[in-house]
């Protein structure tokens, strides 16, 4: 069991509670549902779990039009109709027109795979209910060919949600649940550290201070998240900005360089600039 435990990877920092939830899901072979602010690494989790456990990854990205059936299989009736008009021989075998979906592919994998069902809340409200049996028993029935498809190895299923719709209780009951909260400064330092191992210590702490200050600005429409921070640091490094600049700006002018990477919303940028302006005025009048 020791080698099948997930402990984060060289590029992904997993907190204790996240590790626990993932390991419970791996051991019990039940799905894990991950929620959290955008940009906290929900989708990345599945990729990292697959990598660290050395398992193949199947990704199923959900859109508002996705149907549960599409994950299992689709019967391409139109192709069959066309073939029948053209007198193609393939038309006699219905299994020629069964297109396998991501879940089917994962079920047929030779080794235990990781299956990512990304942004499950984007789909129709009934979507999770349509997958209950499949996720629970890890099997489904193809009516067209009258075949039962059963998972050779129960896949490790990672489901992510952005909370756009509420998920049904019956679905939730079958999953482990983890809410990725926004990392604290300490965790954030570790996260930045795995991404930029050679970052100068003082630049990092100044950057983080500036970052959390921006996050604390009241009224921001979209607060910068981990992924924005990483982008920003990448830019700072590319521009070779010394840490003193960040500090000096933080004290008097308070507007961090290249802040376009942190604030993605025009209104937020505007609000931020206004606050800085007021701040500066207050500073000079003292």
């Amino acid at each position: 069991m020791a080698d099948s435990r997930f402990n984060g990877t060289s590029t992904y920092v997993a907190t204790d509670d996240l590790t626990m939830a993932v390991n419970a899901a791996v051991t019990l072979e039940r799905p894990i549902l991950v929620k959290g602010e955008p940009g906290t690494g929900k989708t990345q989790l599945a990729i990292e779990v697959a990598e660290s456990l050395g398992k193949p990854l199947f990704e199923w990205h959900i859109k508002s039009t996705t149907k549960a059936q599409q994950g299992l299989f689709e019967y391409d009736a139109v192709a069959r109709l066309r073939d029948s008009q053209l007198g193609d021989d393939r038309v006699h075998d219905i299994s020629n027109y069964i297109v396998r979906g991501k879940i089917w592919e994962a079920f047929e994998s030779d080794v235990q795979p990781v299956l990512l069902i990304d942004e499950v809340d984007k789909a129709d409200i009934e979507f999770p209910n349509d997958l209950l049996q499949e996720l629970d028993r890890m099997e489904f029935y193809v009516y067209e060919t009258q075949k039962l498809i059963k998972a050779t190895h129960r896949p490790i299923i990672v489901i992510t949600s952005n909370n756009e719709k509420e998920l049904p209780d019956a679905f939730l009951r079958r999953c482990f649940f983890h809410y990725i909260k926004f990392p604290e400064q300490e965790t954030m330092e570790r996260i930045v550290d795995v991404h930029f191992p050679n970052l100068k210590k003082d630049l990092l702490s100044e950057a983080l201070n500036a970052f959390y200050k921006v996050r604390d600005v009241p009224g921001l429409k979209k607060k910068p998240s981990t992924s924005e921070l990483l982008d920003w640091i990448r830019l700072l490094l590319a521009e070779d900005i010394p840490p003193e600049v960040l500090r000096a700006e933080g004290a008097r002018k308070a507007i961090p360089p290249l802040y376009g990477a942190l604030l993605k919303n025009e209104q937020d940028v505007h609000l931020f600039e206004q606050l800085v302006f007021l701040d500066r005025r207050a500073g000079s009048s003292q």
Partner: protein
Amino acid sequence: MLIPFFYLLRDGGMKPSITELLTLLEAMKKGVAGQSVDDFYYLSRACLVKDESKLDLFDRIFAAYFEGVEDSLSDLMTDVPEEWLRHQAELFLSEEERARIEAMGGFEELMKALQERLDEQDERHEGGNKWIGTAGTSPFGAYGYNPEGVRIGQQGSRNRSAVKVWDRREYRNLDDSVELGTRNVKIALRRLRKFAREGAADQLDLEDTIDKTARNAGLLDIRMVPERHNAVKVLLCLDIGGSMDDHVRVCEELFSASRSEFKHLEYFYFHNFIYESLWKDNRRRHAEKISTLDITHKYGADYKLVFVGDATMSPYEIVYAGGSVEHWNDEPGAVWIKRLLNTYPKAIWLNPEPRNRWDYTPSVKLTRDIMDDRMYPLTIAGLDEGIKALH
């Protein structure tokens, strides 16, 4: 094993199922959690909590159960806001004590010192509470009146490292009984979207018709489906003025952001209660009035009516002609609101005041009676209930 804990969670208002308990036990049997209490906390949380708004409640129940303080469960439901505690504490302080606190570096410092002293004390002897409570000359004596006050810092207990995790209560602002905040507004909006997408009408399902016809080897097979109804119409009546102003801003944000989800959304303002006229622009409220009767004639019965107001006023303003504080009304407000309710059977009243305060105000009770009890607090949970009632 763990069955008392399971029932405590259920009594506390969470709904873990038997399957989830069995999953937890199975995971423990397979040794997922190891030996530490922290691990067990993380594991049980992943198994039993499926909604981030319940994480805070879970933390509180977990803390209560595993510290053997089961009798403190009664106050789990009454979450005392820290602001209030602060006020209480200040209230009980004499001038002299206040001066001493200032000397110690203010309230924050005091609380820190208090916690330190508590921790220290636990190491030395058992009957810790007494020490704080009766030490008359201690600066903490004042807090003795308010046992909750001492607890803000949280009791240090024997298994300290473990307690820290759930006693930090990081998920507090996700709790769905707190008032709507910006983050919460977003989630609430999503709930409105759900309600905006339901309804029924028959229309041709082109895709399914083609599909079924193909399956039918080319014989036409027409399929009908209920329409995806994104056409909810809402009449929003907002109480404006006085204590309502800051609440109104939240509501306007809420509804205008979800505007795209509704086919029609109309705002109207009123002051304290509904009378013969409403207005759309609060600055010109006396110049541009819209007759309430005109509204009932203009907007059809398929509109859903949402009142937002604290319903806190003198009962005269509801039941008597001439009761309005602003003008002379020929007919009492109760008559007018009933006219509206007759036209719009789907109606709710959202009240920004917390539910436990409603009983103390006669006008709230009156309004609730008129609304057939369809009054809900302006919280996520309340909004949820209200939206159900609108269906």
